[in-house]
């Protein structure tokens, strides 16, 4: 579904933030991108979406090179839904208006039917349809941004830190919603996450970025058991197995 081949990217005249990244994600799986703050996770997601043009390599979706396809074309053709990391709802618009923004390129009848489906699916939003998005809690905003991305049934869903700033309970709820989307729709979902262990609980596979490269990749279950991961993410605690240096687990 998505295939990132040896992509290099950066901003303006700056250095390469991504230095040759390879990543694959298939339909019906959640692939999560992990790594420390500032390592380029969001940049990679923006590169997949098309906000950042690769300097080298290519991004493919459904087997076509989309590196040069503008974001709005992918949205218009319902190929992709994208939820940015912060400020992901329009706070002056109502919940209903926010969701409908995701359905601009759908026939009115279909749009209304989809909207009703989503309201049935997310009761927490249904009870607040006319409220301004600014009146929602952090978790409700994440659900709102998900619903807005989902209304057009995109084939690919890109989520930048959907669990950022949420309480453990809300985080669990958001992850559950994402897993449910995968199971029900068979969408190809790529998320960026800081909360590595929680994210690995729902993801199928993961890529850990470090210094612009993929340092570790594999099935989520394997990574959860990987001592290198523990070393990376439980900073304070000593790694369980000291004999293995971090970042050594590529393939």
């Amino acid at each position: 579904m998505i295939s990132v081949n040896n992509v290099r990217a950066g901003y303006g005249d700056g250095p390469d933030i991504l230095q040759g990244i390879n990543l694959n994600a298939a339909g019906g799986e959640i692939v999560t991108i992990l790594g420390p703050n500032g390592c380029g996770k969001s940049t990679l997601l923006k590169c997949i979406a098309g906000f950042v043009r690769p300097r080298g390599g290519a991004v493919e979706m459904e087997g076509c090179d989309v590196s040069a396809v503008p974001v709005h074309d992918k949205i218009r053709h319902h190929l992709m839904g994208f939820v940015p990391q912060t400020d992901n709802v329009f706070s002056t618009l109502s919940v209903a208006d926010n969701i409908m923004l995701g359905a601009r390129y759908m026939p009115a009848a279909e749009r209304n039917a989809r909207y009703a489906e989503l309201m049935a699916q997310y009761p927490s939003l249904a009870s607040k349809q006319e409220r301004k998005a600014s009146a929602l809690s952090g978790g409700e905003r994440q659900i709102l941004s998900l619903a807005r991305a989902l209304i057009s049934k995109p084939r690919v869903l890109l989520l930048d830190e959907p669990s950022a700033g949420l309480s453990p309970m809300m985080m669990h709820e958001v992850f559950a919603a994402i897993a449910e989307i995968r199971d029900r729709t068979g969408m190809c979902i790529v998320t960026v996450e800081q909360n590595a262990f929680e994210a690995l609980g729902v993801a199928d596979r993961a890529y850990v970025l470090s210094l612009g490269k993929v340092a570790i990749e594999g099935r989520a279950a394997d990574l959860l058991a990987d001592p290198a991961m523990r070393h990376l993410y439980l900073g304070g605690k000593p790694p369980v197995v000291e004999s293995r240096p971090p970042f050594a687990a590529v393939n």
Partner: protein
Amino acid sequence: MVEFLVHVAIMACLYGLLSLSLNLQVGFAGLVNFGQVILFGCGTYGAAIAFSHQLGPVAGIALGIVFAVIVAAAFARLGRNLGADYWGIATLAVAEVLRILANNEAWLAGGAQGVGGIPLLFGDMPRPMGPLMTLGLCVALLLAAWWLCQRLTTSRYGLALKLMREEPQLAASLGYDLAALKTQTLMVAAVLAAASGFVFAHYITFVGPDQLVSSETFLIWAMVIIGGSGNHLGAIVGAILMQFLFAFVPFVKDALGLPSEHVAAMRLTLVGGGLLAFLIWRTQGLIPEHVGGKQNG
């Protein structure tokens, strides 16, 4: 006295058009244009060039619109590679370059001398009727422009502009083409400003580069800020208010017994002082932006 009031009213309408145009850019699309005067100049030079080639006023307005669209496209192109603040400075630079060009290229439209003798639009009418007809035209233009701006900004297009201004990243991620939105807004605004310039040229009957100094841009900015940016009526009120205040500066000067050279300085003080006062005490302007309201996706 009536003729004087008609004159002030005509100028108020023409500035009202410029102010509406700038407000569309600044207040709705978040485009900080410091080169606004050159869009007006597209209209004046369209009229001047058509006149000096013995072409009629229809050719003049057509030429003015073509110039305006070209300059707007150039401004939009600059915006692709620059942040909003640098873009503002770039528009100022482009406007200055074009003014200096007009000043030095005598073949273009008389260079620094400009072009005089541009016919009045209603020149063959008897004296009080001509200016009144011009005023009628200006009022009609202003109302039409107001209606157009109102239509644009309350439509889906206006919602797109609002979203772009509020959360550009998010708007882009929802499939809004920000570059196209900005280009379109600039084009509409440019045509409004050029229309103002065209009528101005045929009213004053003279076109020259000195009409395009950047202080004019800042005067229009003052009108937008004082009137209330993000509100069409505010932009018009700001322009009318400033024009009428300006018109009465000479009377105040006489009452205070000040020498004539103080008039320009007093006007400048009025602009600067008014601007400062509003920026400090009433940033939303006289008529604040309409926030919220019914929006449809």
